[in-house]
């Protein structure tokens, strides 16, 4: 569009006005004029004729949160996207299975609507108030950085634009102006506060890794942390690292077909896994038995042979009841070779655990017995002896040290011994009948209303090893599950029908509401199926059982079923968790490029849950100590969760940014001035107290996060647990928080507590999106992003084994740009402004102790020792975070972003402990992409375009480059001493290029990046390499862990899987107990359990604004409730209701359905407040989103680190933003509905 200044309005006025044409240029006329529009007659025909007269069909797919990863055909005519249809060219799964094609669902089929939607973000926007101030200041100071400084340093100005957030008033601006403002803000913040005060958030890279990498690479290059997503979404199952030492490795959906017995547990497959559900249906024709566990009559229930209707949040008890049956009938009453063999090699059941005398005649389960504990044992003095747990060898009757533990994984002596071969050792699973000696152990149970610990005494057989009393994990498990054996002391349930004690079927039935007979039957069938099919029993796990505060315990109880029966590591067997992460199959190339590990290491990775727990000040509303919320075990009496977090940070367990109470650049300068190395300087200053962690004083303005960028993300319309706290403390605008802050006795001791918590901490909220969301409306700057039909990228998923591509059907319309181009523009301007303001600086980076590295051997026996209390010295990388000094040339950020740095060749690549030499690969990329001439990246391969980035990601990953896969396996072989490289040999010469993915979806190559084998066209199932090739799990013992012995976990009573009921919100926060009716401003209100499951009509907030989906669903926000609850408060279907608790308010319509159980309501996840949300009756402000009623509660066992599988890595382990334990009061709305 030309500018209207070109219009000469000074001549004859109307002539001139006609000359103001902005939209048209003279163009060619098509000779045939064959698309003349028709009038009258059979004009209706034209639609059908035109429909197939498209110019081109482009392959693309749908990104970010959609896990389906379906390939689509996008039809384009005359530069306009007209519609999409499913691709049908997936490679075949073989002759004896159904096919993947076609895949797709109504959501995907509706996507092209977004391209021309009226609420598309078409131009860059800035809040008018801010833009005016910035322009004025820029004029005044002549420098954008000074201009930005003048605004944010002026309290009045800052308050003016922050308080306007979410209240409209955006104006369009040019890309140039906006990039200038954004870059200036970043430069200023790095200069004034340090790079660790900036953060970026973009989720689920699998679905578009190039777009993820765009901003991530920029952030990591300047030293700003990237925030995790998996734990934050509460999708991350902590049970996975706890048990497997691996995060979410699960079968592709084609492997459901291989199962003989399939339980869908809290996973509504037809609804949330639409393109994959056919596998479940088809497998039934093959004789598979299908069970659905769901509290409501969910969509998947009608496909199942049995419906197990367990009460919400009680799934752990249900699984324990089944486990009781399995252990009673298949481990005690008789033994099954298949189970015995499996558990001897692949689980920790035979490992010896020390029992500690409690002094009251009972014992407590203690630490694993390790080689270093065994005086006189040949292994006692071996390398890493404290990291080699022991078993009792049935062949010799002596204690033995099997290969494969973490102690063998690192160090010279372990070379060739990190494997699961037992040699001559025959580990005994139980000591029953060994010496005849037995003692009582006190085991915790929490199955009461408060969820508080009660101890139960049950006997276990023991043996004496030196002066220690030991038993096996299986013996403890049997005691925990109440499976008695003759002659053992203690109180035992009398049988399956005894409801008095865990974990009999009758006990589980009382808690869950599931009939005893059904629990027994399914438990029995589950085990028998495993025997009959050699482990082909599978559990699909979904968000329904995963988003709870104690979800790790629920999951552990379920995983007992899959692991103890030998189903894990089998095709058609094991856990199948499909919530959230979705597999970035080319993980190695992705990680190294997205986090700029080719230029600078280590990266700053942050777990987002604790980030917001701290920075939205939600910790200040914890009106209880950490002991009260975790079962009153006495482990954390008098300490707040915030204290525990501060400790976990200073011990190097978890990341925490901002790092220190001053800029990380300043710390580097100070160290240099003191003439000390960074690590030494930081350790000494922390010890004498002159340097403190920022997390110990988060309300100090120097420790605020200052800039947050969101792309591919709708934080404030979707994932922000405690949404209203974000609005209040982070953004400083209107909110609906009514909660009270902690009284003095509940406040943290190690963390400063100023009377006033910060409000409006953030200086700049930047969002890149293609549609208007809550996040864009609260943002200071909004940039128009290309949609998924307008850019190049690649796409992978857990659900199928293919890589396929995004391709632009049209160029981004209006002023939209792809994420990659947008961040390049910001990086370029940032680099220019950095010349005057930043130059080259040293940056001190703290990093937690990492998983899959020797740092994971920091805490012997999981015994917590704190340097702050003088128990140990602060030693970086051992008793505190790793401290690294890196150099950042801020003027070359753009050059680095668009080229592959030298570290890949110099240092190599490292993923999950496997090292790769990639000189050859980088050379190939030099030839393929061309090299940079001159400057800091001289001679390095270019990655200027999105295709080049995609190609580099795939070329630097084993799954898409057979040469690297084979190299990785050979590296592993040296450590394991077993053969592995043949797994990828069939594809050693294969390189998947971007062009390949444009032609058709391409199957990936078996690679050490993942644990399953696809060799010979097998369906992917996790851990098949571990089971078939004796490769250890990445845990303490190298086996799957039922038993956990870290101090904190033990203190919380969670050494073994245990049932923990949902949190009691009445005790903790004074909310009404579920079911209670009350008078609420004259209306009857009822308290209900508030659940937020995934929706059929949207993928998070995406598609929820799509009118196709709105018309398929009810449209606007809704809450599903039972007819019984509705009758209590006089609500009929489609009435307006309000849900209120201390965290916020939701105003929406009720869907009344007998499908819902009494006492439970569903508000489907992420119904954005943009769609049909009225002003509330409660406070006359706009109603909130589903997360307005939730808030963050941090579980201490999730922030344990530095201990074997309990060690940090990005999206591997971390506190989850759980949101299922919440309750709310609901009432009918009486006031008229206004907007």
């Amino acid at each position, binding site marked *: 569009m030309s500018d209207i200044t070109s219009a000469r309005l000074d001549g004859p006025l109307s002539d001139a006005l006609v000359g103001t044409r902005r939209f048209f240029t003279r163009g060619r006329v098509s000779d045939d004029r064959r698309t003349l529009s028709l009038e009258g007659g059979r004009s209706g025909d034209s639609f059908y004729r035109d429909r197939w007269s498209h110019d081109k069909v482009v392959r693309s797919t749908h990104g970010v949160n959609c896990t389906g990863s379906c390939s689509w055909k996008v039809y384009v005519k005359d530069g306009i996207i007209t519609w999409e249809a499913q691709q049908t060219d997936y490679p075949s799964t073989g002759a004896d299975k159904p096919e993947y094609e076609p895949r797709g669902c109504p959501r995907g089929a509706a996507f092209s609507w977004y391209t021309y939607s009226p609420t598309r973000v078409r131009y860059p926007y800035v809040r008018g108030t801010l833009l005016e101030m910035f322009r004025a200041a820029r004029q005044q100071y002549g420098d954008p950085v000074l201009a930005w400084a003048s605004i944010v340093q002026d309290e009045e100005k800052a308050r003016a634009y922050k308080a306007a957030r979410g209240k409209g008033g955006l104006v369009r601006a040019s890309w140039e102006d906006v990039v200038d403002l954004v870059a200036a803000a970043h430069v200023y913040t790095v200069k004034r506060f340090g790079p660790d005060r900036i953060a970026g958030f973009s989720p689920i890279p699998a679905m578009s890794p190039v777009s993820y990498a765009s901003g991530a690479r920029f952030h990591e290059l300047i030293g700003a942390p990237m925030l995790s997503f998996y734990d934050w979404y509460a999708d991350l199952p902590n049970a996975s690292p706890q048990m497997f030492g691996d995060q979410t490795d699960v079968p592709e959906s084609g492997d459901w077909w291989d199962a003989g017995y399939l339980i869908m547990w809290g996973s509504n497959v037809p609804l949330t896994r639409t393109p994959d559900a056919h596998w479940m249906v088809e497998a039934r024709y093959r004789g598979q038995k299908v069970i659905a566990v769901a509290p409501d009559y969910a969509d998947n229930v009608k496909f199942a042979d049995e419906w197990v209707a367990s009460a919400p949040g009680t799934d752990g008890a249900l699984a324990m009841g089944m486990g009781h049956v399995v252990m009673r009938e298949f481990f005690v009453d008789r033994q099954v070779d298949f189970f015995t063999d499996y558990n001897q090699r692949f689980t920790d059941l035979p490992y010896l655990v020390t029992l500690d005398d409690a002094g009251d005649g009972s014992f407590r389960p203690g630490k694993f017995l390790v080689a270093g504990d065994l005086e006189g044992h040949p292994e006692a003095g071996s390398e890493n002896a404290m990291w080699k747990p022991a078993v009792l060898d049935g062949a010799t009757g002596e204690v033995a040290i099997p290969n494969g533990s973490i102690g063998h994984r690192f160090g010279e002596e372990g070379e060739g011994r990190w494997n699961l071969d037992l040699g001559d050792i025959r580990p005994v699973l139980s000591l029953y009948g060994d010496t005849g000696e037995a003692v009582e152990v006190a085991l915790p149970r929490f199955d009461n209303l408060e969820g508080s610990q009660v101890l139960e005494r049950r006997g276990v057989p023991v043996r004496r090893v030196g002066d220690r009393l030991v038993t096996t994990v299986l013996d403890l498990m049997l005691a925990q599950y109440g499976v008695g054996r003759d002659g053992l002391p203690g109180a035992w349930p009398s049988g399956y029908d005894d409801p008095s004690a865990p974990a009999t079927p009758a006990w589980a039935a009382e808690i869950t509401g599931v009939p005893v007979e059904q629990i027994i039957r399914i438990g029995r069938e589950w085990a028998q199926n495993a025997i009959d099919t050699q482990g082909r029993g599978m559990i699909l796990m979904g968000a329904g059982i995963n988003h709870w505060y104690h979800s790790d315990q629920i999951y552990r109880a379920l995983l007992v079923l899959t692991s103890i029966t030998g189903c894990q590591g089998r095709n058609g067997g094991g856990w199948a968790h499909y919530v959230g992460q979705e597999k970035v199959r080319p993980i190695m190339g992705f990680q190294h490029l997205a986090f700029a590990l080719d230029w600078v290491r280590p990266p700053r990775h942050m777990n987002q849950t604790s980030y917001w727990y701290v920075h939205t000040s939600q910790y200040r509303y914890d009106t209880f100590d950490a002991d009260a919320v975790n079962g009153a075990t006495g482990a954390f009496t008098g300490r707040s969760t915030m204290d525990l977090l501060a400790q976990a940070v200073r011990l190097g367990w978890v990341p925490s940014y901002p790092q220190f109470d001053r800029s990380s650049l300043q710390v580097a300068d100070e160290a240099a001035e003191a003439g000390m190395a960074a690590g030494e300087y930081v350790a000494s200053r922390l010890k004498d107290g002159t340097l403190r962690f920022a997390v110990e004083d988060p309300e100090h303005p120097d420790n605020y996060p200052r800039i947050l960028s969101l792309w591919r993300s709708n934080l404030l319309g979707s994932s922000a647990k405690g949404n209203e706290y974000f609005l209040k403390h982070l953004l400083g605008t209107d909110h609906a928080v009514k909660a009270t802050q902690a009284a003095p006795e509940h406040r943290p001791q190690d963390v400063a507590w100023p009377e006033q918590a910060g409000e409006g901490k953030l200086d700049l909220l930047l969002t890149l999106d293609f549609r208007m969301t809550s996040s864009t409306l609260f943002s200071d700057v909004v940039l128009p992003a290309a949609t998924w039909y307008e850019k190049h990228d690649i796409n992978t998923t857990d659900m199928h084994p293919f890589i396929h591509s995004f391709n632009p059907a049209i160029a981004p319309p209006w002023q939209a740009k792809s994420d990659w181009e947008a961040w390049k523009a910001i990086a370029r301007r940032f680099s220019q402004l950095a010349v005057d303001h930043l130059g080259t600086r040293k940056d001190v980076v703290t990093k937690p102790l990492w998983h899959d590295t020797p740092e994971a051997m920091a805490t012997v026996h999981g015994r917590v020792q704190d340097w702050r209390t003088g128990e140990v010295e602060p030693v970086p990388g051992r008793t505190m975070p790793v401290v690294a000094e890196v150099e950042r040339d801020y003027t070359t950020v753009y050059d680095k972003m668009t080229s592959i740095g030298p570290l890949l060749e110099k240092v190599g690549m490292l993923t999950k402990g496997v090292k790769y030499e990639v000189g050859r690969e980088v050379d190939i990329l030099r030839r393929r992409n061309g090299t940079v001439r001159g400057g800091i990246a001289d001679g390095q391969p270019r990655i200027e375009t999105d295709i080049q980035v995609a190609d580099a990601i795939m070329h630097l990953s084993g799954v898409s480059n057979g040469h690297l896969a084979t190299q990785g396996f050979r590296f592993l072989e040296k450590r394991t001493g077993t053969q592995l490289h043949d797994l990828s040999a069939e594809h050693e010469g294969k390189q998947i290029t971007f062009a390949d993915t444009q032609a058709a979806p391409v199957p990936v190559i078996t690679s050490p990046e993942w644990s399953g084998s696809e060799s010979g066209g097998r369906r992917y199932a996790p851990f098949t390499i571990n089971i078939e090739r004796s490769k250890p799990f990445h845990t303490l013992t190298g086996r799957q862990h039922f038993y956990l012995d870290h101090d904190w976990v033990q203190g919380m009573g969670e050494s073994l899987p245990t049932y923990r009921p949902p949190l009691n919100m009445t005790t903790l926060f004074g909310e009404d107990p579920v079911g209670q009716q009350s008078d609420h401003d004259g209306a009857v209100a009822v308290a209900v359990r508030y659940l937020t499951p995934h929706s059929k009509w949207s993928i998070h907030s995406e598609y929820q604004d799509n009118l196709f989906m709105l*018309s398929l669903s009810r449209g606007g926000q809704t809450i599903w409730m039972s007819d019984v609850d509705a009758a209590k408060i006089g609500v009929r279907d489609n009435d307006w209701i309000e849900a209120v608790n201390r965290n916020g308010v939701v105003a929406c319509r009720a869907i009344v359905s007998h499908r819902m159980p009494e006492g439970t309501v569903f508000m489907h996840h992420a119904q954005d407040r943009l769609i049909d949300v009225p002003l509330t009756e409660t406070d006359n402000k706009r109603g909130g989103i589903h997360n307005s009623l939730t808030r963050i509660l941090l579980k201490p066992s999730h922030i344990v680190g530095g201990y074997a599988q309990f060690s940090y890595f990005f999206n591997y382990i971390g506190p989850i933003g759980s949101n299922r334990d919440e309750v709310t009061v609901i009432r009918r709305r009486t006031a008229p509905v206004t907007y």
Partner: protein
Amino acid sequence: MMPWRRHRRSSPRFDARAQADAWQLCSLLLDYPREDLPRHLAALREVAGNLPPSAGEPLSRFLEHAEAVGLPELQRDYVDTFDVTRKCALHLTYFLHGDTRNRGVALVQFKQLYRQHGVELDDADAELPDYLPVVLEFGATVAPGTGWKVLNDHRVGIELLRRALDRRGSPWLDVVAALRATLPDLDGDDEQALARLIAQGPPQETVGIDDAPYAMDPDLDGLRTPPADGCAPPGSTPHAPQSLGPTIPVGAPR
């Protein structure tokens, strides 16, 4: 919803010059207010002053408003009105074709219409071909006759836009009023016919939808008994059983 066919063959109300001026002025003013708008306000006011009063007066009123509030305020208001809501969409096919697959094809038809008249829509920062300012400019500067037809075809959209602006009390209501003044008057039963079309709403896929719009079976309402504690739903007389509409016969031969 169908295109509005009633006025296709009617004649313009203004002379050619006045119509072109009015449309181009509306086109300018319905587009985003740019940085240089204030400099040209005086000239634009003069153009408006020369128009027939039915269009000139509301346009002058709007221009006065624009001058009074100043550019930043006008820009903010514009974005809040047109960029973040659907109701005030300026894309004509959005009203006519709603969210059906026909919309893409309709956009293509616009594009081809322009091409037939020898012009191409500029690609740089391109607007969609059905963007009202684009259509108005086409009518003002390229093909008044075709513009006339297109605008009349989309009269329902223009009326919906007017209503939405009216409900917001938006200053842009004046601009749309001026545009309407160039189009045929709605008289006789036109208003009812329009209302009927509007009430129909945008076309929707109807396969599989029976009479009842929601999943809940209204028959069940009558079966629900009030709770024992006496807090009966206010005004809850049970629905009389009603037809559930055609259902798919189970087991019927196809």
